[in-house]
């Protein structure tokens, strides 16, 4: 008997719910995430997506002709392929998803819903989830809403013009914080765990096998909220060259700035794709590929050249990366 395919290959063969013709930037990591969500939800259940306002909403649902969601001309009776999309303002995608889930449960309770319980997935940007919408995100998790939330972390409000977001790395340039702020970003993974999420993960689609497993587990979490933070390199906001999206996604994890992480409540979690201290690539390798860090360091003829006087700031970023990995290991054991 043939060995079963790994999850990501099996997903790749499924029918996608996110289709070509969207208006996201070339090489957008959000689009890669949406494809994975679209494939992972092709599991025989009806799917309802709720979208807060973010790039992924305004560039995929454009009146009159850019609608990039759906699984083709399926008959409405084919509940397994059916896809509903609800969109509302910035912070509201988790709460609307919770309402959808509650309605589904009520319908099941009175016997009006005979099909398998639907997939309810909330999609949101990091600004919408962790700045404007932190309140609604944490309260949804705290109420143990049985939904999966995918938060696209690009560290800025990319949709409205790259304004500062509290998830931004220290010294990351944004339009409202020139040169960035020296403070550490908020501990989003810790917040989600502390609020009581049933499943918390952080992972980049650049690690396809890991991300597919995480997506599968998040969508099938039925005893509470599953939150997946997806580090999403933003080609327009971070200002990097074409073809580096996946590479930056990998480096973000390997340097320790956004390590791959997953944890189910009550069970030990794991921190993945980040080498032990000493073997880790230095943060400079990640920073020099993006013009938002040009004031700290840049590549000159293949050599990393640190701006004179900014060595201390780089050391601070490196220290954040190291502390971040240690902190995540503590959360994994929580």
């Amino acid at each position, binding site marked *: 008997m043939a060995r079963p395919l790994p999850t990501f290959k099996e997903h790749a063969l499924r029918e996608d719910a996110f289709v070509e013709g*969207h208006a996201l930037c070339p090489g957008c990591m959000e689009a890669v995430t949406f*494809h994975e969500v679209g494939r992972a939800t092709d599991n025989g259940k009806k799917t309802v997506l709720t979208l807060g306002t973010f790039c992924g909403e305004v*560039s995929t649902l*454009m009146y009159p002709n850019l609608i990039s969601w759906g699984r083709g001309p399926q008959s409405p009776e084919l509940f397994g392929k059916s896809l509903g999309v609800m969109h509302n303002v910035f912070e509201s995608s988790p709460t609307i998803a919770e309402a959808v889930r509650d309605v589904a449960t009520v319908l099941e309770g009175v016997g009006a819903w005979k099909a398998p319980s639907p997939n309810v997935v909330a999609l949101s940007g990091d600004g919408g989830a962790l700045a404007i919408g932190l309140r609604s995100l944490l309260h949804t998790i705290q109420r143990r809403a049985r939904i999966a939330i995918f938060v696209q972390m690009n560290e800025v409000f990319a949709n409205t013009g790259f304004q500062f977001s509290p998830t931004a790395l220290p010294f990351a340039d944004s339009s409202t914080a020139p040169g960035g702020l020296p403070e550490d970003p908020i501990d989003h993974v810790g917040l989600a765990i502390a609020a009581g999420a049933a499943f918390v993960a952080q992972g980049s689609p650049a690690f396809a096998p890991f991300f597919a497993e995480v997506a599968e587990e998040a969508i099938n979490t039925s005893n509470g909220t599953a939150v997946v933070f997806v580090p999403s390199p933003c*080609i327009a906001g971070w200002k990097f060259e074409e073809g580096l999206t996946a590479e930056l996604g990998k480096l973000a994890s390997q340097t320790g700035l956004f390590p791959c992480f997953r944890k189910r409540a009550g069970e030990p979690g794991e921190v993945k794709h980040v080498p032990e201290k000493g073997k880790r690539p230095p943060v400079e390798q990640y920073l020099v590929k993006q013009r938002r860090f040009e004031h700290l360091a840049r590549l000159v003829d293949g050599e990393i050249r640190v701006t004179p006087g900014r060595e201390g700031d780089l050391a601070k970023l490196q220290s954040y990366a190291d502390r971040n990995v240690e902190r995540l290991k503590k959360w994994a054991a929580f």
Partner: protein
Amino acid sequence: MTIDAQFLRQRLESGASVDVRGDGKAGGGLVLVMQSFGAALATHPELDVQDWPLFSSARKGANVRAYLRLARGEVLTACQITSPTVAVLMNEAAGEEVDFAEGTHEALYVVNTPASPEEAAQKYRLGGRVVTVSADQLGQKYLGRPLGNVGVLAALVHATGFVSPDAGLESLLHVMKKRRIPQRLVDQNAELFRAALTESRVGDFPADPSTDHRRPAAHPKTDVPAGAQSALRTSRKNRTSGYGRPGVRVEFHDETNRCNGCSLCVVACPEGIIEFTPDPRGALVTGAKFDDFCKVCRECIASCPLDLFHEVETPMRREGVLESA
């Protein structure tokens, strides 16, 4: 009638407005050009300038359009420009999606192309004065990337003659500083601007019925033409291959069936356009919908362990002249 600097000046003196409209790609620097040009014009004590870049919710590589209106006294009209006096084509790929000369019959056209004014006039059916500048190549030379905006600004300043080249450059540097563009890039752009002033080529062509881009009368039922955003968005049916960089496309070659079904490109493609046949080993790739949807982001090239995807240089991303909105 020659559409030169003198014609434009006379037009302003007669009390009419000079309307400038630009078509380009988001991320290509069209807004920077219009802002710099507008700021330079605004230093003129008698001119009133209104500039209005059209932002849609589209992303890098999507078509964008910018408007700039100037007149003596006060500009009171506040709407899109439907029949420009000066039409700018920042990126030829943008011209594939919309007719940049829409609404004109005889005008001043500034086109970023390596072609000569004669060739451009023939290709886009232009009458009046056609100024071409090979700005992408200048960008490649001075900035290391085919970014044509500053070259086009230099050609625009030169061709319209409203402000001196020095004033145009000063305004550009001011706007760039305001945007916190690194000094290194500002210096490179200043050098590019000076070089581009002498690079533009000019040709005058008679207007005839074939150069008429004016729209037929508005629809009798709605009475108003479709809004600019709608027109841009509906110009092509969800085709997004125009978002890519000009002059290149991606191709898939696997004559000897080397693809082993690793599926990495299928899950890495942001457009989800990789075509495959299912196999016990995974997804065996057969190609992709490059012509219609590939934005040349190079993620498939980066992800394929067997190097089956290649970026190739080509003058046109796809065949045929596209009809306008």
